[in-house]
């Protein structure tokens, strides 16, 4: 095992060790790091990747605050990263790509930056339903024909789902002052929900084994499952728009800043972004020149919601949903 992360200068090598905590898929992270070390050979053998869940990254970074082990926090929701920033865990800086980025996709103080966009769409089992049969918009989910056909990844523990549900509330009360119509809507959705899935895997299993036929999920994963794992999944871009989540990256405060910054700059390399978009269905948070076909044809329609309102109220709303609505519709 290696010694402590950031202060490991032994051997007088030209580059310090770089430790990355990532919530990205292992295939993605391996691919990116391979490209990175190809470009910066001094980092060969010096990059250590730990694949963790987004929540675990937060826990780890938080617990290691006194002696940070990680340099890069790669992959986390806007909420998670903001929490980290709020707890003074993240380093603040201004990379080159920041200027190209829409301010709503990054932290104002430069402590984290959006990397990819995750539109939340309607997913369906395309063995059980034809694209014509699938619901076209969020409100279609409440139709009686979908009674018990909907599978939902359990909300409280999932950043993705929390955002979708909060968006559904904000959709009906843009300033968040009156969540009641949203609650009513969610209650009807709960009535149609056949089962809550424990985690993504569970969701995929339940859906593919037709315990239900519809779900709400992020586009990237739907495409990945359908194209790489043979899953019978299709998606519908909701007519009224998809809530778009930002998944980002940050440099950990007290870590190997040089390496972290070099890595983050590299991640926004145009070529790399294009590859990731093509192979891993990522929608970059910055504009890229060369879009793969699926992205060009996507027709992404963001749902117009105020994320600050969501950020402020999410916990309360989700707690309410969890205790008053879930399984009661």
């Amino acid at each position, binding site marked *: *095992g*290696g*010694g*402590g*992360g950031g202060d490991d200068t032994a051997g007088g090598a030209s580059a310090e060790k770089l430790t990355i905590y990532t919530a990205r*898929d*292992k*295939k993605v992270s391996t691919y990116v790091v391979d490209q990175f070390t190809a470009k910066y050979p001094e980092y060969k053998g010096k990059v*250590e*990747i*730990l*694949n*963790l*869940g987004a*929540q*675990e990254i937060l*826990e*780890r970074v938080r*617990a*290691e*605050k*006194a*002696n940070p*082990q990680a340099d890069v926090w790669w992959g986390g929701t806007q909420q998670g990263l903001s*929490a980290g920033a709020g707890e003074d865990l993240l380093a603040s800086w201004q990379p080159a790509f920041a200027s190209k980025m829409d301010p709503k996709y990054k932290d104002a103080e430069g402590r984290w930056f959006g990397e990819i966009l995750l539109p939340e769409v309607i997913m369906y089992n395309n*063995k059980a339903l034809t694209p014509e049969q699938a619901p076209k918009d969020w409100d279609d989910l409440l139709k009686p024909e979908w009674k018990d056909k909907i599978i939902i990844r*359990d909300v*409280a*523990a999932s*950043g993705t789902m*929390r955002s979708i549900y909060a968006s559904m509330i904000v959709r009906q009360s843009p300033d968040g002052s009156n969540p009641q119509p949203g609650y009513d809507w969610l209650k009807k959705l709960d009535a149609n929900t056949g*089962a*809550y899935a*424990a*985690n*993504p*895997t*569970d969701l*995929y*299993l*339940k859906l*593919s*084994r*037709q*315990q239900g036929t519809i779900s709400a999920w992020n586009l990237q994963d739907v495409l990945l*499952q359908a194209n790489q*794992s*043979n*899953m*019978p999944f299709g998606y519908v871009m909701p007519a009224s728009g998809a809530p778009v989540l930002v998944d980002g990256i940050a440099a950990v405060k007290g870590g190997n800043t040089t390496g972290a910054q070099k890595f983050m700059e590299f991640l926004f390399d145009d070529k790399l972004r294009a590859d990731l978009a093509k192979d891993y269905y990522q929608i970059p948070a910055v504009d890229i020149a060369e879009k793969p076909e699926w992205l060009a044809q996507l027709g992404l329609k963001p749902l117009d919601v105020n994320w600050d309102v969501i950020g402020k109220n999410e*916990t309360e709303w*989700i*707690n309410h949903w*969890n*205790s008053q609505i*879930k399984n009661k519709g």
Partner: protein
Amino acid sequence: MSTIPATPGPATTAPVTGEPTPPGGSRRRFADRFSGGTGSRWFPYVLVFPLALILFGYVVQPMFATFAESVGVDGVENYGSFVTGGGVARSSLVTSLIISAASVLLCGIVGVAMAFLLKRFSFPGRKLIEAIILVPAALPPLIGAISFQLLYSETGILPRGLQQLFGTENPVLPFSGIAGVLIVHTFTMYPYFYLSASAALSGMDPSVEEAAYNLGAGRVRVWRTVLLPMLTPALVSASLLVFMTSLASYTAPLLFGVDQTMTMQIYINRTNGDLPMASTYASVLGVVSVLFLLGMRWYEGRRSYRSQSKGVAAHRREITNPLGKWLALTASILATAVLLAPVATIALVAFSADGSWTTEVIPAAYTMQNFVTIFSDPAAFQPILNSLQMSLLATVACVVVGVLIAYAVRRLNFRGRGLLDVAVMLAWALPGTVVAINLISAFSTGNAFSFGQVLIGTFWIMPLAYFVRFLPLVFRSSSATLAQIDPSLEEAARNLGASWWRAFGTVTLRLMLPGVVAGALLAFVHGVGEFVASVLIYTSDTAPISVEINNRMYSFEIGTAAAYGMLQVVLIFVVMVVSGRLEGGRRSSREAAKWTA
């Protein structure tokens, strides 16, 4: 007129000198105290102090930190929510308690029944079943629980199979909610009961059982009034472990959608960022566990379970009907099949092509691809080696420390005995995440417990975490067997001149061995499968097998994850077989044979 000397005969032994104590006397006295064994008033403290320090540093103090956090902000309100009801807090607590109590009951029935079948009957294949029977305990996290879903849930093999068989409209007998949680708990935790009950059965004084038969008690009654009560220490030990595991169980409620449980609420609150409330849940969890522990201690302490017989009674009862043997064989095979079903399901997944298994009862297409994928990765074996190495290290440490604490708590008289007991078990009651976070906070800078070393980011933090988490397993099961052993055996050894250490090693420990081995096996198996704590402290060099499985699960490579899971199962199975040999498979079948000879 008699040959009896009126006065005592002359002494021929070396006379005792009447000289004053030599100069070194006082120092020798002092040394005596420390080598003085159970006799010295100091001994218990000398033995226990380092242990208490470890426990304080790694378990108690972090627990207090958790508690402090929970009362820091809105403390009264947080705890109040458990009392006032209405909210989630109270119903979570109640649900958790119900699940735990029911799990104890179900695991008890399955575990003790298996122990009885396997320890009291000898039949062909018994040894194989003995090795297999612990495999369910080794089910990899996540995929293990998923295998239960694949088996018993609405879309599972069994309900769908029955549906097809009977041609019904809906799946038959699907398990969901609490029932589903209980089925997972039963099949993964019964080994606690199985192991401790079998260790206790082999250490029990058989003549006591005979006495009950002689007084006219039938087989059932003997079990109810003599054997089970005599197994109390073992059953208490297993109940504690099962109760606390169920209380802290996370994956099963998660998968079966029972979200009003303590652990789910801890997780949800952490995700919400409400750390004080999460800590409150964790503290309540700890308090409930401690209360349960104290209750069990009291219950167990009311009676004695030591053999009081004169001499050593033969283990032998000759059974009249050979039918019993064959019934036992049938029952064992059936039970094993049921217990192994989840493992078989994982195997099924491992050999099926990803995405090929949707609405069918069993997969339609089979492939070796998953294994090829794993083995084509040059680093495929690294996580396996890591897990083996780390849990072996931790197991060794658990055995050394756990056995000594068990001895101290059972046999020595000192202040704070009960506290020590509680401190050890607390580590088990705490969720793994909490233990890991505590360790990170403790070792992210150097401190006294690590001799000033920063352990975070090193190899050592992992075995240390396993040690802290799994110490209670060894401690409990050692303590249970110790309760049966007549202390006069140790006294005899001491009387023959053995130092405390020697008497302990050659007699007490030797007689405790079945329990120690049972605990060590559990610790090892759990170490190999540990995930929740590992994921927070592993480094890329020390990635354990569970993290590897989890990564593959995460990217929904369920086939390769299952293939990895199978490797883990096979590994554990091999360890079981080997340890079965080591621990005297011959002896155990001989013991069993004695009951049916």
